[in-house]
């Protein structure tokens, strides 16, 4: 074993801890170098999307299901938080919690019947939920403000300080996002996570190993809805404004694209996918103008050449090489 090989092996062995450490450091110093509101606004949005995409990735990438309606749960969080804190004048933290419970309830109601479906049917059912929620947001003016949305949503407060400036929001959002990523990593390394992976690969085999597949699917669907709602609440309290167009079916499709591009069944892939697809349109004008076409093109290219997504595809390659290397040195 050469020194280089030893080092690479060490890095691989401690990859999770090292990634968390590196990322935390990077995020801690980031606002010192990129302090302007525009870049911070962008990275804050990435943090929020990461939380949605993580939940969706647990559902799509690990449990092997499909949802084209997660923007609906994102909307429940955002509008729930907005209405409860503006109209009912509740504390934003409480509003966030109640909105999350609402999203869990909605996911349970939708999931119990819909998760008996597979593939295209499940995709259509979840898409339907998104369309219903979107229509309610646009049509029920009296409550939701209609197409023009709701403004003046109060920020979250911590120890009496309102978290409203971009720098404060940066630390708030990324702390929450990192905690969610860590919880996600815990989940996928546990017996429950293995049950989900088994379910995604082969439902019959999973059942023969004692996995209650129906309950497992509903549980992870509810979990992903709660994460989307949490992200929605963060969105509302951070930007102070919500309007329906953020929560349409194209948002749902974008989330799925982020999951697929970042990496199916990769917790870190969620972060990567959310970052890449939020950041690219900002740096390349072409993306902004032809966003739908470019997203579609990226999706097709990834599916053709790295069908498990960028991060998962690369991790699979590394794992294979490592397994080969270890059996040579065993």
């Amino acid at each position, binding site marked *: 074993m050469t020194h280089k090989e030893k080092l690479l092996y060490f890095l691989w062995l401690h990859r999770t801890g090292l990634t968390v450490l590196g990322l935390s450091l990077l995020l801690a110093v980031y606002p010192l170098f990129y302090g302007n509101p525009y870049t911070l606004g962008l990275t804050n949005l990435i943090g929020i999307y990461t939380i949605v995409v993580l939940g969706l990735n647990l559902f799509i990438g690990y449990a092997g299901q499909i949802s084209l309606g997660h923007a609906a749960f994102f909307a429940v969080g955002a509008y729930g938080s907005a209405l409860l804190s503006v109209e009912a004048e509740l504390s934003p933290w409480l509003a966030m919690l109640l909105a999350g419970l609402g999203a869990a309830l909605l996911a349970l109601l939708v999931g119990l019947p819909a998760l008996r479906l597979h593939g295209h049917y499940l995709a259509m059912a979840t898409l339907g939920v998104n369309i219903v929620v979107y229509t309610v947001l646009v049509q029920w003016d009296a409550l939701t403000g209609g197409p023009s949305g709701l403004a003046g949503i109060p920020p979250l407060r911590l120890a009496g300080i309102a978290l409203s400036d971009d720098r404060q929001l940066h630390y708030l959002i990324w702390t929450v996002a990192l905690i969610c990523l860590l919880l996600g990593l*815990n989940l996928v390394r546990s017996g429950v996570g293995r049950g989900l992976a*088994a379910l995604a690969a082969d439902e019959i*085999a999973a059942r023969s*190993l004692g996995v209650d597949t129906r309950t497992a699917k509903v*549980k992870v669907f509810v979990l992903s809805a709660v994460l989307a709602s949490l992200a929605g609440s963060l969105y509302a309290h951070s930007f102070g404004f919500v309007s329906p167009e953020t929560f349409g079916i194209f948002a749902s499709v974008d989330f799925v694209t982020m999951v697929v591009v970042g990496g199916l069944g990769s917790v870190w892939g969620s972060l990567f996918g959310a970052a890449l697809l939020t950041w690219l349109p900002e740096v390349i004008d072409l993306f902004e103008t032809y966003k739908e076409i470019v997203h579609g093109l990226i999706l097709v290219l990834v599916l053709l050449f790295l069908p498990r997504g960028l991060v998962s595809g690369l991790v699979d390659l590394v794992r294979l090489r490592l397994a080969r290397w270890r059996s040579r040195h*065993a």
Partner: protein
Amino acid sequence: MLEVTGLCRNFDGLPALSEVSFGVPRGEVTALIGPNGAGKTTMINCISGADRADAGSVHLSGEEVTGLPAWQLARRGLARTFQNLRLFPRLSVLDNVLCGLTVEGGSSLLGALLRPPSLRNRERRLRLRAMAMLDRFQLGELADWPVGVLAYGDRKRVELARALVSEPALLLLDEPVAGLNHDETAAVAAEIRALRAHGYTVLLVEHDMDLVMAVSDRVVVLDGGRCIARGTPAEIRQNPLVLEAYLGRASATA
């Protein structure tokens, strides 16, 4: 260990199983045989929870388990292998075998998210058990490999290791030598004998008469959805009904 009593299953009024009864005694290898269309597959499906019998009962370790879903049967000690292998190809060999320990349940979703120290220790113990099982099947060196890239024989052993890691009360082997050559079949026969020596209770569903005669303590013969004979391999070999069921068909297709 397993008691099947008066099991019936009809498909659109056509009986696939009628009044089938047999037992699988503890610590023995019992074979379920029969020509094509005899009802073997329907029987396995009813025993393993993939299908529901119309009448009759199934008892596992003395408890009635009739009509329970597959995942509950698994948690009550029924483990199985599949005719054409049902592994998780992207997961590593070790993770596949660890999946065999999900029958022990354990952590809730919330617990899994928070990963308290108790769960961490439990995970460590599970890994040790899975590694021990891999070593028993000479798979230790392949632990990190994704199952999908392994040779067929290795994958078969992974599936068996996955089924056995939870120390099941009953092991159901569904046509373990389908598609194997003569030497490989002999290796599987040796493995089944080793399982018996370890004290496992096995229900073997198989086409291959030579294998069945070589490894079984008892044989149950199905034909046309009925149980036509039961006994030791020697008795079955001389049973005229069995000879007719097999040879009759063989000469008809020849």
